[in-house]
């Protein structure tokens, strides 16, 4: 059965807002390698062509609506109007057979659902995170609107994909989606991108030779728990001479800078902001331990990247992380408080055989279960299932 998919995502490289861009990019390319015809509808970006074919993937960049709008959700609504209109013009000419519409998150719900009905083709949706999870509950009407849109998307979709069992549970609990409608397919990495690329020169930019390098990578927001790691740092320094390197941006950045001053450890904490992908991968290869102190984590792609770089992980194992690594096998699992985090970091830094053991196990796990080739295979199975169910029903086919 030949497969064709129309992927809708509000971000796609070079337009990168969060982790979605890399996910949709890598998935599209790997699906194309597996013989799937892939069309990606995304938003325009300065300098990026409106239409191009990269590694067999057809990419269309739609006008993102650049006039003022009352709020973010209204901008999303206007962007969806543009995306749907554009999709209708190109799909009519480009696609002659059956295809699957694959939407990523609520941001493209309107366009994806309308496309499903206009062309009468099945819709698959990946829910990467929920408004409930991102906000720690639904507290106002704006958040209620987004949660309601997410629920609508999951009702309209033939199958739902979530990146972890944790997320599947959240979608089931929060949006009321039946569990038997959800497929769990994790995120993936390309191992070859994480082969050793850092050296002494790169290391000297972040830490002195006698300092152990403790790495944090992620947005600087409450749910990632970076504030707990900062509080843990004085306790770590009582046992180990270390430098904490914090990579990422977020609203906690100024708080972190102020707090490390108060704690008197400003020379031991380096907040880098955003780093380019090459430097980041280099850092993974020269660091001594990665700490993921998350309180909420739908998946935890940073754990995969660290494991692929053979970097030992200390983590609270929140959400999806606990499905990737396990305590004393492929990570040191800690509680989300400074004492426990400090204990875990000291365990790894003072016990080389433990560090070696957990990093090797984590690497083997990633190699066996989280490479893009495998992830794409699982996605193809979902597409095949959806398409054969759709064809067997027969009655909902478009008139030709």
């Amino acid at each position, binding site marked *: 059965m030949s497969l064709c998919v129309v992927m809708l995502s509000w971000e796609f490289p070079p337009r990168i807002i969060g982790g979605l861009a890399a996910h949709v990019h890598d998935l599209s390319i790997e699906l194309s390698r597996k013989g799937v015809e892939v069309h990606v509808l995304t938003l325009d970006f300065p300098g990026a062509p409106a239409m191009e074919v990269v590694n067999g993937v057809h990419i269309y960049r739609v006008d993102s609506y650049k006039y003022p709008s*009352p709020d973010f959700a209204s901008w999303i609504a206007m962007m969806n*109007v543009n995306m749907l*209109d554009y999709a209708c013009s190109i799909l009519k000419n480009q696609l002659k057979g059956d295809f699957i519409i694959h939407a990523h998150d609520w941001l493209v719900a309107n366009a994806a*659902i309308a496309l499903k009905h206009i*062309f009468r083709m099945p819709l698959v949706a990946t829910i990467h995170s929920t408004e409930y999870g991102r906000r720690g509950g639904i507290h106002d009407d704006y958040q209620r609107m987004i949660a309601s849109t997410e629920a609508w998307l999951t009702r309209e979709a033939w199958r739902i994909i979530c990146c972890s069992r944790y997320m599947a549970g959240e979608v089931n609990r929060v949006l009321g989606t039946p569990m038997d409608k959800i497929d769990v397919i994790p995120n993936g990495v390309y191992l070859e991108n994480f082969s050793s690329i850092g050296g002494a020169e790169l290391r000297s930019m972040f830490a002195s030779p006698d300092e152990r390098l403790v790495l944090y990578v992620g947005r600087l927001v409450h749910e990632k728990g970076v504030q707990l790691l900062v509080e843990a740092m004085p306790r770590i320094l009582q046992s180990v001479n270390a430098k904490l390197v914090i990579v990422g941006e977020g609203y906690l950045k100024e708080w972190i800078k102020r707090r490390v001053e108060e704690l008197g450890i400003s020379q031991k904490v380096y907040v880098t902001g955003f780093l380019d992908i090459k430097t980041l991968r280099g850092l993974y290869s020269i660091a001594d331990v990665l700490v993921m102190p998350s309180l909420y984590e739908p998946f935890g792609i940073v754990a995969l990247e660290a494991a692929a770089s053979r970097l030992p992980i200390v983590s609270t194992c929140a959400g999806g992380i606990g499905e990737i690594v396990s305590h004393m096998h492929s990570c040191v699992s800690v509680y989300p408080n400074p004492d426990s985090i400090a204990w875990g970091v000291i365990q790894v830094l003072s016990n080389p055989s433990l560090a070696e053991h957990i990093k090797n196990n984590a690497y083997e796990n990633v190699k066996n279960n989280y490479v893009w080739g495998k992830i794409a295979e699982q996605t193809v199975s979902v597409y095949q299932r959806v398409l054969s169910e759709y064809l067997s029903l027969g009655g909902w086919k478009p008139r030709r």
Partner: protein
Amino acid sequence: MKVVFLSWEYPPRIVGELAWLVQSQIEGLRRKGLEVELVTVSDSGFFIEEPVHGLRITRISSPVYPHSTIITWIAAINTEAARVVADIYHSTTDKLILHTHDWHFAPATSSLKKALNIPWVVSLYSIEQQRSLNPNSPLSSCIRTIEWHMARECDTLLVRNEWMLSEVRRSLPLDRVAVMVLDPSSPSWGDEVLRLYNLLVKS
């Protein structure tokens, strides 16, 4: 041939005069023997009614609740309208015409026209430039963008008098659309519109 009217007002949902205008136009066209379906808005859930034989009214409601602005509501309502019109299209062999009233259903209709080759007629009674106290506000600017897009994508734009024509000329791009002045209260309105529908279906 069957015409699908799309209007955000229809009795009992009365916001302004649009409800009455649409109702009398539907009655006029039905008297001429044309089959008409209406897609309109309900504030109390989705339902279908057939008050008189041969007039099917689908009242759609937003699948999302609540909304932060009328723009997010319009987007959701348009997705529902696209679903309902696509169902009408896929379940009949009749030639369809889509006839929208003002800007509210322009996004869905533009996409339906492009995807399914359905001719599109717009009746324009007022524009945001006239209605809004602050036409440059972010909200009005979204509505004006939709009106602008509508004027570029529809097949024929109907306005009711020369004054409205001059207003539309000043505010909207009319280089790609045929514009007709047709007074809905004139006795010849029905015949003129039927002639237009026939022309559009044949082309």
